[in-house]
């Protein structure tokens, strides 16, 4: 960092005006980046719907704060004479600017995608029988209409000891995951459940077997989003019933890729 002050760019960076301009732009940039994620509908790849308003507040905050540097920029002319005095804790170095622009850089370089199969590699997948699903407290808001239930609703219902009736028809959307653990099932229809942000995502899944005449494992690609309509067969051993798919169709990735408890 001693080179910083030696090079021309380093000296340039220490001018109050340059600092103020870059800081203002960076804050505006972060605000605009966040704003584009909101308008492009990809915000919920990252955070739960419940917190959308927080992201909007952050955009406003960042833009207001960023714009306030404009005043500083105008007044910087007067203080330009004494740039050395300004060199206290608030001056950012090039690497500081780079670090803070990382969310923008990474966000633009890597196209936004929700968590998928790769994230399952080191996460627990809660197939209904597993004890560690979401709690009874959340389950109180359970959807009763069977065709409207999500994977999470079914898993919770099974977890609470409910058994599917003959007439129950499940109509669920999720992505395909080939889980070695479930042998009778051809794949596990999986969704991530997000409480707050993708960092706390938990996976839930229903084992699915495919009725005769439908495309089977070979035709399905891992990570592909599908809609499965069918009824549950009683399952042996494992206490979660296998969903027998009577209809299986590829669907585009939903706008809300995660489920919320």
């Amino acid at each position, binding site marked *: *960092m001693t080179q910083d002050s030696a090079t021309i760019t380093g000296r340039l960076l220490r001018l109050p005006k340059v600092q103020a301009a870059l800081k203002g732009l960076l804050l505006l940039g972060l605000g605009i980046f966040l704003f584009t994620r909101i308008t492009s509908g990809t915000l919920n790849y990252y955070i739960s719907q419940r917190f959308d308003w927080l992201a909007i507040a952050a955009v406003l905050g960042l833009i207001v704060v960023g714009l306030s540097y404009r005043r500083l920029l105008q007044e910087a002319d007067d203080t330009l004479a004494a740039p050395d005095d300004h060199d206290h804790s608030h001056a950012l170095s090039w690497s500081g600017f780079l670090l803070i622009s990382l969310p923008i850089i990474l966000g633009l370089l890597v196209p936004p995608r929700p968590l998928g199969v790769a994230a399952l590699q*080191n996460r627990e997948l809660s197939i209904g029988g597993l004890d560690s699903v979401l709690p009874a407290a959340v389950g109180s808001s359970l959807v009763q209409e069977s065709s409207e239930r999500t994977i999470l609703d079914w898993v919770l219902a099974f977890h609470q000891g409910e058994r599917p009736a003959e007439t129950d028809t499940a109509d669920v959307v999720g992505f395909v995951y080939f889980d070695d653990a479930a042998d009778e099932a051809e794949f596990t229809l999986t969704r991530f459940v997000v409480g707050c942000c993708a960092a706390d995502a938990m996976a839930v899944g229903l084992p699915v077997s495919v009725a005769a005449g439908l495309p089977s494992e070979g035709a399905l690609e891992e990570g592909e989003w599908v809609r499965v309509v069918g009824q549950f067969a009683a399952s042996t051993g494992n206490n979660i019933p296998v969903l027998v798919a009577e209809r299986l169709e590829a669907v585009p990735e939903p706008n809300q890729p995660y489920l919320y408890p």
Partner: protein
Amino acid sequence: MGQASPLPQAAPERTGTRWYGRPRWGIAAFLVFALMVVVASSINTPQARFFAAERFQTFVTIFLSLFIEAAPFLIAGSIVSGFIAVYVDQGMVERFIPNQPLLAALAGAGLGFIFPVCECGVVPVTRRLYGKGLPLPVGIAFLLAAPVINPVVIFSTYAAFGWGPVLWGRVVFSMLVAFSVGLIFHLARPREILLPETLAVSDGRDDSDNHEQSDEYDRNHDHDHGGARRGVWQALVMAGDDFLDMGRYLIAGAMLAAAMQTVVPQSTLLTVGQGPIISVFVMMALAYILSVCSTVDAFIALAFSNAFTTGSLFGFLVFGPMVDIKSSLLFLGVFRRRTVLYLILLPLALVAVIGVFWNVQVGV
């Protein structure tokens, strides 16, 4: 370097660029480490190429999600901090905060009810209050307790666990740990604990010899931010400076947490962690790595509530909000490195004792 001489190097801000050499090295090292871990772990797998890309994608998604979730709290905390900088003067802090150490630490632990902030928002506020002469124990107790002792978090814990030992245990033990750690720091001198730039606007009652310099520095500071005209826009500029200052640590922390999440399988930790003692440490390690915001960590803990005892859950619910990867890095922007280590280890030890004691004595 952090533990250098107890003598204050005469006004560090005069030595130009020196100050930012310190934290930047840490950040650079962490960044390189995080990226290396991600890259290395992906290349080892058989389907190397594909997985490397997929894992990187996951890494970016988790990193951005942590950033986007924390940014609103950080900017809110920074704006509060900016307004404190402009509108609160030292006299006010001295008048309202009790000087008696026990009361001070207790006040700090309860301050979260007045400023409901989570672990990202609390750091810039505390830093600014230190600049205004807040006593050390109050700030530390506030920093550790506020992420739990606030209405939002208490409500989310209630929503997850209902009335019961988990809820009140979380509140009581968080208060207790924050209070104790705050009290321990009563013995320390601000100059040994805080970074020079945190103290820059302070007149810290322990450094009377530094008094005039600080005052002079204070004036320079004001001058640089727009002469004698103080006001809303100036508070906002300071908020921006604070956000960018703290943002560096937040981003480095979020990258590290995301890297850990992409690489360390949760199941390894969980299968290792049974038994009354190990399980407490496992839950604390998990909380540290996940770096989830304290407003929702109760729901995560719920997922483990069947596999783990209440004592172990305290490890997650009490320790996690106080320190995790993200907040340890944020602390580096306020405290000296050695202090940050204490701020991790003291709560760790205390929470471990509480958790193990609960597991062994109370059971369930």
